[in-house]
């Protein structure tokens, strides 16, 4: 084990996989000679050359479409989509083409493509570069969606994603790139569809994705000082979802808050809450509760922007309300 940054973990995952599998290519805006977005891909072009690390024109629909075609014809492309917000630009390539090829070709075609993109506000990037659009992708059958929370998770999940034969979109929090964490030196993989129980507890379950895991960890710390024991579940994989771990936990604690940075309405949290209601209904002692970003465009004003996303303070307040039957 050593402590490395998120960026290094991503870089290592890609480099390790590219060394093992010559069919893997990486493409995106500024990924090669023009420098790399958030400096995550530093050094890759030097090792693998411009044949495998490909700078593309500024046309997301163009290069994602290209990657879908390349994936169907024998390569395993990793696409760098500089901002999660650009998902909207590539929806036809992703949702109508990539997600459906395997099904519509009767299983003859695979699209083993990974889209690496990001999510998360509070980086002062304004409304068009601050969205958390995982729910929109997760809605499409045929695409897998991952939301790592630490350098350890991102490395293990990204490697699993690259080896997966389906289109996978991995959302990384923009603020996480410099986050440090313990990562083993030896190779490891985190299988898709496995949630992680970060901390066991008895009074309430906090289900969280991506950076909201850290928010919930802070909240759990405060709750502990108030003699409330919270169980934290890092979902890690949105599609496929590890329903069992979540449902089992809620059966134990009878109360749950699901936190994701996407807008609160019609989001990942709603889906998880819904499954809890269906499968743990008779174990619930309080309404299963969602927390997400406000249903507004993310403001540019730092003061306002910080108000829109869930904070540990809000999670604590909500947890106490649920435990005191204040609902």
């Amino acid at each position, binding site marked *: 084990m050593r402590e490395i940054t998120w960026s290094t973990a991503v870089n290592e995952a890609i480099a390790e996989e590219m060394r093992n599998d010559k069919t893997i290519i990486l493409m995106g805006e500024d990924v090669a000679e023009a420098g790399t977005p958030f400096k995550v891909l530093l050094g890759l072009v030097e090792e693998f050359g411009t044949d495998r690390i490909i700078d593309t024109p500024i046309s997301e629909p163009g290069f994602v479409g290209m990657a879908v075609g390349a994936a169907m014809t024998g390569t395993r492309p990793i696409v760098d989509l500089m901002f999660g917000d650009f998902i909207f630009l590539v929806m036809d390539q992703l949702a109508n083409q990539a997600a459906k090829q395997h099904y519509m070709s009767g299983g003859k075609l695979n699209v083993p493509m990974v889209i690496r993109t990001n999510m998360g506000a509070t980086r002062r990037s304004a409304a068009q570069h601050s969205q958390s659009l995982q729910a929109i992708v997760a809605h499409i059958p045929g695409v897998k969606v991952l939301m790592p929370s630490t350098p350890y998770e991102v490395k293990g999940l990204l490697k699993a994603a690259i080896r997966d034969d389906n289109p996978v979109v991995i959302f990384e929090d923009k603020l996480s790139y410099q986050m440090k964490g313990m990562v083993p030196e030896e190779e490891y993989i985190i299988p898709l569809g496995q949630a992680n129980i970060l901390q066991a507890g008895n009074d309430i379950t906090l289900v969280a994705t991506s950076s909201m895991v850290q928010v919930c960890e802070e909240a759990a710390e405060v709750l502990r000082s108030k003699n409330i024991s919270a169980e934290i579940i890092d979902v890690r994989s949105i599609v496929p979802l590890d329903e069992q771990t979540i449902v089992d936990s809620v059966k134990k604690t*009878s109360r749950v808050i699901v936190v994701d940075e996407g807008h609160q309405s019609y989001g990942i949290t709603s889906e998880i809450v819904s499954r809890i209601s269906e499968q743990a*209904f*008779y*174990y619930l*002692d*309080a309404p299963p509760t969602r927390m997400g970003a406000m249903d507004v465009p993310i403001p540019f004003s730092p003061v306002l922007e910080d108000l829109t996303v869930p904070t540990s303070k809000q999670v604590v307040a909500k947890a106490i309300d649920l435990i005191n*039957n*204040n609902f």
Partner: protein
Amino acid sequence: MAYEIIMPVLGMNQDTGIISVWLKQPGDFVEVDEPIMEVETDKVVQEIEVSESGYFSAPKYPEGAEVPVGEVIAMLYDTKEEATAIPDEAKDLTGEAFNPKSEELDKRSEEDSMPDTKAIVLKNPPHQVSASPEEDFNVLEIQSTKILASPKAKKTAQNKGISLTDLLNQDNDRHPITYKDVDGFVTKGKGSNSFSTINMCFEDAPIKEMLSSLAQEVEIETWRMITRIIVSSFYDCNVFSGDTLAKIYTISGELVLRNMHQFSLSDDVVTTTHNKIDVEIIDLLDFQNISIEHQFSAPIGFVLTHSNNQFKLQAVFQSSFFTTVEMIKVIDGITKRFQAPLRNLLELQD
């Protein structure tokens, strides 16, 4: 064998059909494939044939009635007797039903009629059509009375055989019942009633005196050292012979209720017992400001505490077993005994 005749579905989006004409009288024998009525939908008027033979009986709707599809509209029986033995209310309908209006007959459109359309006939109807629908309705109404409770609380209450109504108290006006409420209730015991509490305080000076004069006999020095107090002739209060009557919480030691006779739940039932009442003792010496409401499993409990030269006697009781007035009498009796001459008050247990 009896068969139900059901309003058929004739079109894709059809919810109801109008019985335009009944073609048979009650008691008429109907052959398989014979038409028994004409049904009018928004598109067609159609003769409806039956797929079983039998004696036509009990048309439930008059001509012109609009009936939801799938509804039972008449019956077929094996014998004429069954077919004509129909309830009175059905007779009224048939009287009206069997005067076919000629103009409606004329309206019949021959080309619309599809001869092979048959009424759906169900064998052996599982329940009588005439079963009173109000009964079911009442059941539904009772069930729909909303008591706010979490799913877990409801499930637990159901498993333990507790009615949610019994769990309602003032607090529940504000909050839904949660697991904690049910759990707390369960530990109170099999009873299905809420508990009430009465407190009475009295000075400890006379008791200390009394106790010290008793000291040689019972080997006690102070109240705190009391090992056993026996309250005899615990009259005027309702208890049950043989049952666990009370949990008694004392500062230290034991309080035993004896001779629990003259005790009646109602005027005509007088329970008398000379059994020693089974009493659970919990030492509260180390507890401050203890709240005991949730710790009782008996219908009545007493807590004796001592602080600031005062004794506090707290009685917690199930309101279904004791009224508040009765309980006040009991507490009053106990405190009087403490202050009365010693021999009346305290006895050594044999």
